């Protein structure tokens, strides 16, 4: 994945700093609670929500199971409709392809629709290194780009900024990039949106190359779908002469009819709307309407490695709605930056370590960035069992084992720093298989309870720094049971 986040500290360190930022916590709390209640109302409107969710899950699972077939079918359909399909095994290859395609047009600037895939591969930085300026046109992406900031939410990358901060960024930075912010700009959302409209319009009108991702690709027809709100997507998809769409291979659905499920579940899950303001669908090129050259760049970049994991592959069902972020108690407090990835929140905690591997400190810590409360699973419109995958990845971090990296099977060593945990588990295994020793140990613990420390020494210190040590009862349960029931139920 992108180099943007290389060298990020592990989640606990980053989260520790983030929760002390009162503005950040206030902004996140306000935004996530606003959307949480609205989403619940939007979902309640559809009495068949559970069935739509199940169908969405089945469609995605079926697609992943036959992904090779659908990729080939998609390629044929897009090609037949006048598009050109490219394949990129990793981020570097995708960036090389896009850079080459932009250079071939002779242009040195491009307008971009918000796209997770291009953030994941670090496309803007790669283009900039080749002298090509990429302008983000989604309002939140614009705020992040102007503020020289990093995204912290899948849907609303600037969720960590409040209106006052956004006004300050606009006033300070817009002039550097093009049309300055209007005089006397206030912090009302309508005025801020108007400032973005004025600032970006000149870029839309002169753009010759647009770059997008896609929410869905229909294999049978070759149709791409972009779901958006502001109209910046429509600008980038229809005004330029050349359109380059960079899309992860898991974004396929088999048939046109399948859109009937996701066009109902995605808007309600992400912005809590019955329908988002604008959805664009295009199939290759259309004579005289929109870009006359269309390139589709299909990227793997860790997706096939994720597909090889029997438990973890369900993460590829994700339609990037961000409902799991908005309900997550950990995300609400720590914020998106602490996850050290363009994919924050619960889905990021299972996606990033799979796409990138668990070798780095941040990726090895992400499966632990959760209380396993399960709220993310409840709201997921494609029923990804995020807690299940988190536990699976924790096991992989601690125990190591076989994984797939860049298409090859390798065996991971157990991660460093979990030696105490492994020793404790080995001790527990031994104790539970030796009842006599367990009984003696429990009685000893009960009798010495007044002497127990409030925090653990040595390697246990980190664990007890943020947790209370469970109090040991005055009498072990088994002794109590023997004393009060006298084992009389054993006779049955």
């Amino acid at each position, binding site marked *: 994945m992108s180099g943007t986040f290389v060298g990020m500290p592990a989640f606990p360190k980053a989260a520790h700093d983030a929760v002390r930022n009162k503005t950040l916590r206030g902004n996140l709390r306000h935004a996530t609670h606003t959307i949480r209640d609205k989403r619940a109302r939007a979902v309640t409107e559809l009495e068949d929500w559970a069935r739509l969710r199940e169908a969405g899950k089945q469609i995605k699972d*079926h697609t992943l*199971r036959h992904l090779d077939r659908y990729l080939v079918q998609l390629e044929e359909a897009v090609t037949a409709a006048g598009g050109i399909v490219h*394949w990129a095994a990793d981020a570097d290859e995708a960036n090389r392809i896009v850079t080459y395609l932009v250079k071939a047009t002779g242009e040195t600037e491009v307008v971009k629709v918000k796209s997770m895939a291009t953030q994941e591969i670090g496309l803007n930085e790669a283009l900039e290194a080749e002298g090509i300026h990429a302008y983000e046109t989604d309002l939140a992406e614009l*705020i992040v780009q102007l503020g020289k900031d990093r995204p912290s939410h899948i849907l609303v990358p600037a969720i960590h900024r409040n209106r006052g901060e956004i006004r300050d960024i606009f006033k300070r930075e817009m002039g550097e990039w093009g049309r300055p912010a209007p005089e006397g700009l206030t912090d009302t959302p309508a005025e801020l949106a108007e400032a973005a409209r004025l600032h970006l319009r000149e870029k839309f*009108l002169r753009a010759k190359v647009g770059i997008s991702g896609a929410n869905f690709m229909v294999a049978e027809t070759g*149709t791409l779908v972009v779901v958006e709100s502001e109209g910046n997507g429509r600008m980038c998809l229809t*005004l330029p002469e050349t359109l380059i769409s960079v899309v992860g291979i898991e974004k396929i659905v088999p048939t046109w009819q399948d859109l009937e499920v996701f066009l109902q579940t995605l808007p309600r899950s992400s912005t809590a709307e019955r329908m*988002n303001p604008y959805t664009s669908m295009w199939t290759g090129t259309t004579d005289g309407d929109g870009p006359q050259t269309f390139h589709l760049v299909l990227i793997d970049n860790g997706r096939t490695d994720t*597909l090889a994991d029997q438990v973890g*592959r369900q993460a590829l069902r994700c339609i990037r709605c961000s409902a799991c972020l908005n309900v997550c108690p950990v995300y609400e407090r720590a914020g998106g930056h602490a996850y050290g990835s363009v994919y924050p929140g619960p889905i990021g905690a299972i996606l990033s370590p799979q796409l990138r591997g668990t070798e780095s400190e941040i990726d090895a810590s992400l499966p632990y960035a959760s209380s396993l409360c399960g709220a993310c699973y409840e709201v997921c419109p494609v029923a990804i069992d995020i807690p299940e995958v988190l536990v699976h990845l924790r096991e992989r971090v601690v125990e190591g084992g076989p994984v797939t990296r860049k298409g090859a099977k390798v065996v991971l060593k157990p991660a460093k720093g979990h030696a105490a945990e492994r020793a404790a588990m080995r001790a527990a295994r031994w104790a539970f298989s030796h009842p006599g020793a367990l009984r003696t140990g429990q009685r000893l613990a009960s009798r010495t309870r007044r002497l127990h420390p409030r925090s653990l020494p040595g390697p246990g210190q980190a664990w007890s720094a943020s947790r209370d040590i469970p109090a040991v009862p005055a009498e072990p349960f088994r002794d109590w049971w023997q004393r009060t029931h006298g084992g009389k139920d054993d006779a049955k």
Partner: protein
Amino acid sequence: MSSRDLILGRVRRALADVPQDDTPYEQAIDRAYLREHGDRTTEQTVDLLAENLADYRAIVHRTDADGLPGLIARLLAERGSRTVLVPDGLPPQWLTEAADATRVPDRAASTPHELDEIDSVVTGCAVAVAETGTIVLDGGPDQGRRRITLVPDHHVCVVRVPGQVVSSVPQALERLTPGRPQTWISGPSATSDIELDRVEGVHGPRALEVVLVSEE
């Protein structure tokens, strides 16, 4: 090896553990969800469309074929529109009373800057979805190129009711032809990017007026 073959090979190896399953796709998915929500008369479906369009800040008008030219003329006059974009196949009688606005044809050669100078656009639509308050354009003769309903700041969209109205998203997709370029529009452009609260009016037309014209 090409990256195409590399990726397809990785996919196949990744799925080596999955048992063979040749269930035809039509039978593989449990589509137990509803084709539409609720039980409504045709009239109620049109009312629901009007209600949901208005809920997302589209301005809704209702008229019949005789009243349509007068209504369109009034909407353009109220905006002070001096120029109006017209798709090739727009029924000429719709604009017979809009004498003050200069008609600008939808041409492939027009530049985006030229479109930006135009005040309004009048189109028909392909289908409208009541449950979501959505109008769908598919580049038909009375709708024109995608960009003409994007760059001008005022869009008047005529929906023939009840003929062009469906209840639900599944019913809309059944009516549409996949290969055509489509734009699904639900209210004027909006954003939720500031504190996750919806604000209308960003890059697309800030005024969307939908005229429901009854067919006799």
